[in-house]
């Protein structure tokens, strides 16, 4: 069983469309994250949720809206997609913070906006 799974793996879409990426973890972790990795492999945190509560909301356009229906799921909805949104999006989870903040990553969703 995959610990952190995200779907879809690839997403190709036109500018202006709305799309969603889903993430699920079966590790029983309380905290989940969304990261964006650009073409230079720079990885930046976007959001985190702890037990369905938004904890981190970095400077991300409000076209990006995370939703956590329960602590095992964290989805990312993106409105009005732009060319600059093309990147690999990773979901991750961790048991706790501090020295237990070891993060487990999904395989990524490669988003290409045409």
């Amino acid at each position: 069983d995959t610990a952190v799974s995200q779907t879809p793996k690839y997403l190709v879409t036109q500018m202006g469309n709305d799309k969603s990426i889903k993430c699920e973890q079966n590790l029983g972790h309380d905290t989940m994250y969304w990261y964006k990795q650009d073409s230079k492999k720079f990885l930046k945190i976007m959001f985190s949720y702890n037990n369905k509560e938004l904890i981190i909301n970095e400077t991300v356009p409000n076209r990006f809206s995370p939703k956590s229906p329960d602590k095992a799921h964290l989805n990312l909805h993106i409105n009005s997609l732009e060319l600059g949104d093309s990147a690999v999006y990773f979901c991750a989870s961790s048991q706790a913070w501090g020295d237990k903040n070891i993060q487990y990553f999904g395989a990524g969703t490669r988003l290409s906006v045409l």
Partner: protein
Amino acid sequence: SQQGEEDPQALSIQEGENATMNCSYKTSINNLQWYRQNSGRGLVHLILIRSNEREKHSGRLRVTLDTSKKSSSLLITASRAADTASYFCATDLSQGGKLIFGQGTELSVKP
């Protein structure tokens, strides 16, 4: 601004050689972690070193941390072709689980 910077950006060695990667950061940290990313895959946690620790070992990995210089190094001994990957340092600032990643070192181990 970016917290972590890694050096070198790319490293190419022969199997059996040691590989050393360095990471520098700017602010006080709770801990520092190293992750590996194989091409087209997610990141995998390798090792965590607390701010009050100076050195840690895990198998062929050795991590050092110098908080006075705000730097860390990852040493992979007796490298193998399977170690070919990108390696990232990440600093934990105790801000709700937020990790700030360096730009990564791309390691290529040639058989």
